[in-house]
């Protein structure tokens, strides 16, 4: 049954973000802030970079503030000024990505001013941004969220999000797929991957896809076919999931932005589940020196090796 999600705190959160942004910009604590602002369409939001205290009034937080802004602090985005400290508005899931980037020496904690957001959930899709946030329209990642309130930030508004108890959408879907035969799973993914048009939106929004030269853009050697045909698409999505294994923070941006509605985060969640079972690794707020695939123990499972 569809029930609305309580997002009543978002107005107060917006006010608190504005006040804080205004303060840190006018005090010169940061040179710029990456946040969300409203756009033309009703209920819509888009990322914005502000550097003037007056622009703080443009910042908002609504259920349409879906983006993981961490992508703007990676070296893939050269357009954001990297001089001085930068403020960034982060939800819990976004903060996990930032922690991951710090662990991979892409960012330094002292260069960032974290404005955490108490978050009750955001929309699954912003194709129609004015959609009300309900148990149906909420992003699947939010149904499994354990980070409604980010910790370790420089500033977090005082409001406490009311986290609804929701059916865990990914867990249920992964269980369903795991119960199928390999041939049935192959058929499922073939249908999904066949829709892919290689727009690379999944790669471009991913905070962890910061390579300046993507393996899949190379042609010497060409490891992955660049053509948007079922063969090249399948290879691309397998490679993407593998390169994110043990790194993905679960922001599910890949899945949200896919214009062809491919459930990409299922692959990432499956990998996360395996890494939890095999190496007890989970993406969190803690900055780890090494990810689970950059380290080993002598006792690692090798039951699959002859």
């Amino acid at each position, binding site marked *: 049954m569809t029930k609305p999600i309580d997002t009543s705190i978002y107005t107060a959160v917006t006010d608190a973000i504005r006040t804080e942004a205004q303060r840190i910009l006018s005090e010169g604590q940061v040179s710029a802030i990456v946040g969300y602002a409203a756009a*033309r369409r009703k209920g819509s939001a888009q990322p914005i970079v502000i550097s003037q205290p007056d622009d703080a009034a443009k910042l908002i937080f609504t259920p349409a503030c879906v983006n993981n802004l961490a992508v*703007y602090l990676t070296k893939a985005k050269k357009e954001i000024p990297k001089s001085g400290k930068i403020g960034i508005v982060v939800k819990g899931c976004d903060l996990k990505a930032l922690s991951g980037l710090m662990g991979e020496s892409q960012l330094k904690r002292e260069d960032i001013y974290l404005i955490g957001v108490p978050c009750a959930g955001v929309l699954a899709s912003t194709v*129609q941004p*004015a959609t009300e946030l309900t148990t149906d329209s909420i992003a699947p990642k939010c149904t499994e969220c354990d980070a409604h309130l980010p910790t370790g930030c420089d500033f977090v508004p005082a409001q406490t999000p009311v986290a609804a108890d929701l059916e865990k959408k990914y867990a249920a879907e992964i269980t369903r797929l795991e119960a199928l035969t390999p041939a049935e799973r192959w058929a499922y993914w073939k249908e999904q991957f066949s*829709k892919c048009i290689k727009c690379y*939106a999944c790669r471009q929004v991913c905070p962890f896809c910061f390579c300046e030269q993507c393996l899949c*853009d190379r042609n010497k050697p060409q490891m992955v076919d660049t053509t*948007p045909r079922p063969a090249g698409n399948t290879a691309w999505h397998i490679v993407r999931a593998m390169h994110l294994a043990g790194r993905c923070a679960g922001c599910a941006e890949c899945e949200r932005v896919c214009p*062809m509605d491919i459930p990409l985060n299922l692959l990432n969640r499956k990998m996360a589940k395996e890494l939890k079972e095999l190496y007890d690794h989970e993406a969190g707020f803690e900055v780890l020196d090494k990810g689970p695939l950059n380290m080993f123990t002598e006792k690692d499972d090798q039951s699959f090796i002859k």
Partner: protein
Amino acid sequence: MQKFISEQNLNTLLDTLIAAGTRVVAPRMNAGTPLYEPLTSAAEMITDQLPRRSAKEAFFPVCEDIMTYEKEGQKVTVTDIDPSRFPETVLVGVRPCDAVAIPVLDAVFSWDYKDEFFLERRKKTTIVGLACTTADDACFCTAVGLSPDETKGSDLFLTPLEDGGYDCRTYSEKGETLVNRYPQLFSEPTGSKAVPLAEPQIEKFDLKKVKAWLDENFENPDWDSIATRCVGCGACAFVCPACHCFDIVDEGTEKAGKRRKNWDACGFSKFTNHASGHNPRDQQPKRYRNRIMHKFKYYDDKFGQTLCSGCGRCIRVCPVGIDIAQIVEEINKKDI
């Protein structure tokens, strides 16, 4: 020619065409996503949703082979794909914003080089347009001077009627041929009222004024504030009914392989990357600027047409909420 066709007869028409071996392409659901795809039965057609990708792919596929090669010893055999054997196609339920873009693309595909792949498919395809009765706030066809019942580009145009069925008008010889082939399915106009058309809530742009601003503002700090947020994916270009850039790649082994033509997008950082490593569009705002410039200035300069039909797809799919209608609206409001 003006006729009436009932919903049932339209389905019969499509099923008859399919049975006769004609490829019928129409909006249908594919794993939860509405797309223009070949139908296996008329019942699959959906008329209440705008497909996620535009109808351009019926002429300009996502990916197509253009030749194959094979090497045996020292002998290399190259075989061209023969476009004369592309299938006869009827494209049904095409939204006006998709249909109008096709003749716009004719200009570039038959300009200095005649793209036989595009032109052959064009020759063999009959386009049946469908008027829009619903719009969302991303729709802006009226802002670029079109309308939800624009018939340009359609050979046959269907307008839903309040009492059911469609008013059906022909706009080309191809359209008339289709009607004349199955006259029993069409009847004389009933005089029933049309379902009210969609009304996109946006003011009309002065495209001349927009172009005049673009003419003077290749360098402008506004591009940074507009497009710093752009993450450089190709989603906007790939869902666009008018974007038409492509890339050619060879795939295969030393022994045998194919040369293929893929969609490409000016948003990609590699799009203008030179072999030397130099990239004239080295930052995302410069790449995004090209998208706006190409649509509202360059194409106009070259062919006297605008490369945007206001379908709003790029607005809906943009990962970071970039709204082309908002950008052009703001340019339109500037004092120049």
